[in-house]
């Protein structure tokens, strides 16, 4: 018997990646290849001070001594780093855009299509609660609300501008959380990073709006290497959002970003990511390799850093947003939803390093796997000798949709102080045709059923996201999992 279903499963799975279009724009791109000359050229084009050039070059030389990490549960052919181009900037009429009028209309159009308003009138017409720094390929193209933020002493804008306008701050903090020798991809990033966002919240300031960076990869055969540096000075508070998309291309593209967060005494940073890079097609062709190093340093007493991530895109995700809890009573949190469908692979998790006294950390990880995808949680809780009364609670839940996918959990625990209390819970749930039919029999169609089940599963993480982002994340999850049963 053929039952007339709303849409066939195949039809749903083939649904196009909504952000897969390419913007036709003139770019200033360096030829492919990587050597000291290229590194110096990137630095020269960006008119960087010498110390930064030398820092890059040191990183480059260190990188040449490294081999890519192989411990993650992901598989991909070796990347030819000489075939990539390390710098691509949209050519603009005037070197640095002074206002939106100076920005190529094609670019503005792109961000409009992506639903990111860069025109301040548009933002003002709506509810202006988010300031956006938009990064197109390697370069920051627009920052909204810069002036409003300056009024309260907040510095927010592109990394390049910060290097020019606040070199002392950049020099003081760059590489202090993720040193250039940290790991293969972070070291590469240190050598070739082209732009990113910089943010400084001065003492005692509560940032009045959400700050947001929006990353877009457009050019083919380029890697994207941005760097984000965010400092919350004593008693400051900031909530920061990061979103990403890329065109649909048959080749894999490398995205190796670094994010460094520094929270001084009594400061709080909330960093949220909705990652929706192009995941490749159903057969696993194309898609972004998302190899990202994110780390926060709770430097002062009573400081707090929360990472919230919703990872639905990318062919491969390799990322472990971490917290070093150095200040006494400091708090680290990691809330994660990682969805993999079709041929996607994700190896993601966190590292909580307890150094100060009475430090606390919470890890809530929800991995959802569908199709033939592989989803791995990898986490480390480390308590060093000095960390009296450290507490950690970890909960890792996996959901399998259908029976061809895999979920794996690797929780590592390293305790060097007997007063530590560490708790770990893990569950695995299977969603199969039986569960879906049960929902159907109660009047819910298959899409509603999956979205209900998945959103229920993820609600502890979604409630950590700012409201608009939570809604977006729920929708995204629905789209990512369409057609995953059957």
């Amino acid at each position, binding site marked *: 018997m053929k*039952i*007339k279903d709303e849409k066939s499963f195949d039809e749903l799975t083939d649904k196009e990646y909504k952000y897969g279009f390419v913007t036709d724009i003139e770019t200033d791109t360096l030829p492919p290849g990587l050597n000291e000359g290229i590194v110096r050229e990137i630095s020269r084009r960006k008119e960087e001070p010498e110390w930064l050039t030398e820092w890059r070059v040191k990183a480059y030389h260190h990188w040449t001594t490294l081999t890519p990490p192989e411990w993650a549960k992901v598989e991909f052919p070796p990347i030819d780093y000489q075939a990539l181009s390390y710098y691509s900037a949209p050519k603009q009429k005037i070197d640095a855009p002074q206002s939106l009028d100076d920005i190529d209309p094609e670019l503005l159009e792109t961000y409009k299509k992506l639903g990111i308003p860069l025109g301040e009138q548009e933002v003002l017409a709506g509810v202006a609660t988010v300031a956006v720094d938009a990064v197109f390929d390697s370069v920051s193209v627009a920052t909204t609300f810069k002036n409003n933020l300056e009024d309260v002493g907040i510095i927010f804008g592109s990394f390049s501008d910060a290097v020019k306008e606040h070199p002392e701050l950049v020099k003081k903090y760059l590489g202090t959380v993720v040193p250039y020798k940290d790991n293969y991809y972070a070291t590469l990033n240190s050598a070739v990073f082209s732009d990113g966002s910089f943010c400084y919240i001065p003492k005692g300031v509560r940032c009045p709006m959400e700050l947001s960076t929006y990353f877009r990869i457009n050019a083919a055969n380029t890697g994207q290497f941005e760097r984000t540096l965010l400092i919350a000075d004593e008693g400051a508070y900031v909530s920061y959002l990061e979103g990403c998309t890329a065109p649909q291309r048959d080749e894999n593209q490398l995205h190796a970003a670094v994010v460094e967060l520094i929270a001084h005494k009594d400061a709080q940073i909330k960093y949220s990511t909705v990652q929706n890079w192009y995941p490749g097609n159903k057969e696993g062709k194309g898609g972004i390799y998302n190899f990202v190093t994110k780390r926060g340093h709770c430097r002062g007493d009573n400081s707090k850093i929360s990472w919230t991530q919703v990872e639905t895109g990318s062919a491969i995700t390799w990322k472990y947003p971490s917290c070093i809890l150095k200040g006494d009573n400091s708090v680290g949190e990691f809330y994660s939803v990682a969805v993999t469908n079709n041929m996607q692979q994700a190896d993601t998790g966190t590292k909580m390093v307890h150094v100060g006294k009475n430090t606390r950390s919470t890890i809530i990880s929800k991995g959802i796997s569908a199709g033939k995808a592989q989803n791995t949680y990898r986490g480390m809780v480390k308590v060093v000798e000095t960390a009296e009364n450290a507490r950690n609670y970890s909960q890792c839940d996996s*959901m399998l949709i259908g029976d061809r996918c895999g979920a794996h959990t690797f929780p590592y625990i390293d305790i060097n102080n007997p007063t530590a209390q560490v708790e770990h819970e893990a569950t695995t749930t299977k969603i199969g*045709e039986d569960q879906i039919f049960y929902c159907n029999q*109660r009047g819910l169609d298959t899409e509603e059923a999956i979205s*209900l089940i998945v959103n229920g*599963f993820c609600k502890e993480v979604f409630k950590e996201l700012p409201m608009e982002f939570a809604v977006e994340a729920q929708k995204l999850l629905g789209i990512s999992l369409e057609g995953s049963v059957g």
Partner: protein
Amino acid sequence: MALLDIKNLHANVAGNKILKGINLTINPGEVHAIMGPNGSGKSTLANVLAGNEIYEKTQGKIQFDGADLDDLAAHERARAGLFLAFQYPVEIAGISNMYFLKAAVNAVREHRGEEQLDAMDFLDLIEDKKQVVKIRDDLLGRAVNSGFSGGEKKRNEIFQMAMLEPKLGILDETDSGLDIDALRIVSDGVNALRTPDRSFLVITHYQRLLDYIVPDFVHVMVSGEIVKSGGKELALELENDGYASWAGEEGV
């Protein structure tokens, strides 16, 4: 007009012929019971009616409330008022019973052209309906059927039926797993839901249930066919004689 009209229904599961020409008519307000040995096809019939795609209808015609069931997907049948209380209700982790039911009730209400219930109205409805089968509050807050005992699952099925107010309730061995008191409570609940328009198809192995939920008709299913139909006294006969008289056919 009949509420459910099944004509010459044949169905396969995993390539095996299970239902071999079922004919059954249920009028509004009637209660029909189906009894029959293990593996005779009772649950298969229930699943075919509910639109479970694992079960393949190969022949015949099923009319439900004026519609041809072939034209309706499982969720559309549910919205049209066909409810199946499962023999083995599945567990759905991560989503609370309440939240699940709210989505289900609103899906059905939308289909009927009724307004969506907000949280307050929904809670009122819950308060009202939970009396029907005396379901415990903590079961409402827990994930759907997750870690429920066998009897709690069955009771939850009838509670859901009370919430969704279907036209036809198919009860697949709702009595199995219920203790003596629970059997009485759940049966009373079903009886409370009986109206002149609402019909029931009750699948059971035990005459005892039919002492509580008194059927208008009893059918005996053996090897995918209805071999005998009668009034409620047929159930008593079966209780005494078993299915031995039909044993010849396939060595039941």
